[in-house]
């Protein structure tokens, strides 16, 4: 089981968190650490790229929700990049499509932060 987390600064004052692999009860703490570190550093506009994520469970969703709640306290937001139908289905079922901005590509997700 694997999770890859890559954080990079975008050219427009946003940070992009690229995730790859499986986000579950075992791997989600690593994702949480990456998001928490960014927020602690004062970065409140985040794009989380789920394009290479094959699987996400409720603990992974919980990490994303927790991150969104924290950045919103500072006027920021979290937008997601996701086109995987199975992953999008989970966001649909849980109603999180109404909470997160979910976009087909990074450019659209960054544009919506502005």
């Amino acid at each position, binding site marked *: 089981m694997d999770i890859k987390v890559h954080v990079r600064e975008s050219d427009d004052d946003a940070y992009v968190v690229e995730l790859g692999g499986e986000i579950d*009860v075992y791997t989600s703490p690593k994702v949480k650490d990456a998001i928490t570190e960014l927020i602690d550093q004062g970065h409140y506009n985040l794009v989380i790229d789920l394009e290479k994520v094959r699987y996400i*469970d409720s603990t992974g969703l919980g990490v994303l929700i927790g991150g969104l709640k924290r950045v919103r306290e500072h006027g920021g937001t979290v937008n997601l990049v996701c086109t995987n139908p199975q992953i999008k289905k*989970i966001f649909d079922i849980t109603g999180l499509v109404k909470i997160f901005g979910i976009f087909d590509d990074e450019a659209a997700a960054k544009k919506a932060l502005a």
Partner: protein
Amino acid sequence: MNAPELSNEHLGTVELRIPSKPEWVAVARLAVAAIANRLPFSVEEIEDLKLAIAEACTICIQQGSGIQTIDITCDAATTHLRVEVRDDRYRNLGVTSGAKRPTMSVAEGEGLGIFLIQALMDNLEYNVDPQYGTELVMTKRVGA
């Protein structure tokens, strides 16, 4: 030509016991996917099963302070897969499997897991009880 109607023939039972640790949940998930692959489930249905079983194991881990193992029992039939997930407090206390007790609400934070299982499976019964442990019994029908 109409497809022949499946008879509800019992195909077999598979039992798996995993350590109650996050790193083992993926093993349960993949094992159940392999079992489901023996039945005529679609790829999407198998993905649903994988997530539901992982959620059930996660609930056992998160609710079960001090538990050591989780038992996963899969009853495969031509028309459905029934999966029982329970922590070792059931076994240690000698609680009858599937004993009827009032369904307990789960602790805050675990509700999303239960919600997902209910959405992905065709039937779910669960008990999350501080004394007796955690048990979830769920069924997914083929092509439902």
